[in-house]
């Protein structure tokens, strides 16, 4: 029994780590630009597929490094060409735009890489279990969690200590004042969108090694990421972090005891939060209104 619980706790940690990376990217874009990026799951798939294509050339480690950057670059192009145009319009347009973009990217991936699942090769070091008793914990799982931890720490350090990061955080609270102080808000938003896509691309590469590749691999992560943001509290990245871990863990533990309810439990958490603490666990009062 202890092993079953441990197995599911590990699973929860890993699922939660994916939710966190996805949701942090979504949250960054939502906070600064007021755009819900429906295509975020497709940027994730894009990152995975780019790694798949690049790894024969660059090796796994090269692909792990380069494909998130390429995903971010594609994000910059998308932001410049389309998303930038709808910042000052009714939110319905940003939703429709990213929703359409999600369709285009998904069908594009299906067209280029085919509709069937593809396996992502891993270096032999990562594919082994760490001990024979804990056979379900491969080094890859440890590695994924480590990368996510490093990335999250890096992101928070970037937002806290770098000049650009400070501006992004300031813009979250009052973009007009930031603009008045002479910051180029257009560049700031582009960069911020790119950081979001970078995180999505990175989770794509990591997820590809765990579950393989298919054109709609990001779809299952999108809704839980929304819920992580709502549960953690809109406007708070720390909240998003805890929200993601919480629902990942809750879903995994429910799977251990009552698998059919694993999806339902995260919705139940969301409803409870909306009912009892509408601003979210760590959200600022008024950010969601």
């Amino acid at each position, binding site marked *: 029994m202890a092993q079953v619980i441990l197995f599911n706790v590990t699973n929860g940690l890993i699922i939660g780590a994916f939710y966190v990376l996805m949701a942090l990217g979504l949250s960054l874009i939502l906070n600064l630009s007021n755009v819900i990026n429906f295509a975020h799951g497709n940027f994730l798939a894009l990152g995975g597929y780019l790694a798949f294509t690049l790894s024969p050339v660059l090796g796994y480690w090269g692909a792990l490094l380069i494909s998130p950057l390429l995903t971010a670059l594609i994000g910059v192009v998308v932001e410049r060409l*389309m998303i930038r145009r709808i910042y000052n319009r009714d939110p*319905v347009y940003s939703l429709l735009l990213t929703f359409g973009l999600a369709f285009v990217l998904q069908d594009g991936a299906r067209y280029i890489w085919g509709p069937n699942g593809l396996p992502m090769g891993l270096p032999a070091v990562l594919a082994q279990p760490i001990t024979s008793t804990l056979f379900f914990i491969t080094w890859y799982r440890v590695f994924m969690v480590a990368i996510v931890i490093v990335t999250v720490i890096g992101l928070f350090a970037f937002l806290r200590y770098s000049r650009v990061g400070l501006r992004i955080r300031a813009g979250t609270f009052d973009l007009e004042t930031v603009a008045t102080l002479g910051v180029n808000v257009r560049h700031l938003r582009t960069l911020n969108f790119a950081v979001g896509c970078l995180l999505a691309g990175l989770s794509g590469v990591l997820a590809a090694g765990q579950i393989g590749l298919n054109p709609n691999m990001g779809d299952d992560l999108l809704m839980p990421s929304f*819920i992580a943001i709502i549960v953690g509290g809109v406007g708070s990245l720390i909240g998003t972090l805890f929200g993601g871990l919480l629902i990942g863990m809750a879903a995994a533990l429910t799977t251990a005891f009552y698998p059919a309810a694993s999806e339902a439990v995260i*919705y139940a958490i969301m*409803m409870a939060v909306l009912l009892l603490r509408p601003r979210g666990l760590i959200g600022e009062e008024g950010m969601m209104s």
Partner: protein
Amino acid sequence: MSTTVAAAGEGRSVSRKALMLIAIWAALLTVPLWLPLLGGYTALAGRVLVFGLAAMGLNILLGFTGVLSFGHAAYFGLGAYGAGLTLRYLAHSTPAAIAAGTLLGGLAGTLFGLLIVRRRGVYFAMCTIAFGQLWYYLAYSWNSVTGGFDGLRDFHREAIGIPPFVLDITEGGTTFYYFLLAIFAAAVGLMGFVLRSPFGRTLLAIRENERRARFLGIPIERHVWLSFSISCFFTALAGTLYALLNNFADPLTLHYSLSGYFVVMTVIGGMRTFWGPLLGAAVFVMLQDYISSMTVNWMFFVGAIFILVVLFFPRGLLGMMRRRIAA
């Protein structure tokens, strides 16, 4: 002087409105005559009516209250499942199925509306999306009752009435189309009545300037909640008709993609107009039918349509027409 000019302008716009109404109803009433000539089929027209009603229901919220729901498929799908489950397990009666489905979807919306009525903008939208997906997963995983991924089958619409006064709609075709049209007409009439009432005007005031409306003492939250609830009831009604149209309810009627389709129908037609969503539904249904018959990569083109509409067509067809007339 200026009042007479205004009055003349008003008179002209009234007669233009009357003309438009006559044109719309004439077109809808004669569908079985002209649609086959264009290569369409009556079931396609039924789908336009159903999606049009759902999008018009959404538009009460989106266009006339200025609040964005991106999860209306939930209420549409609950309507469809409510009707289907009623016909399959409870009663072989079409009116009972319609009533049960509409109540199920409408009440779910009403209750959920209470939770999110203080949210605005994208956050409101995000809550509606997430809540909508709950029902999708429920229908998907509650296999024994809902049929899971394969959808709910083994039910069909029943003839209405007591012999000898029976309306046989089991055959589909023209009779069923007119049955749909009659319900559509009643629903749209009711919708027009609601939107023209003082309550409807208040919703417009909230859309135009929420802060001012609040200072005038209008209970904003209650009005937004009521608007959400009413809109869900209409969309749920459309959902029940969809189940009757196909004799089938599947989880995709609950999926957020369908919510996106409703929103894009509304925007294509024109969200600030009463009839826009119906026109948008007609355009969208025809386009989707055509594209999916041409290529397997229909998603790519549908997505591209979304993007093009947002970037180049944000006012929608009727919105652009109205602007041209004003100019």
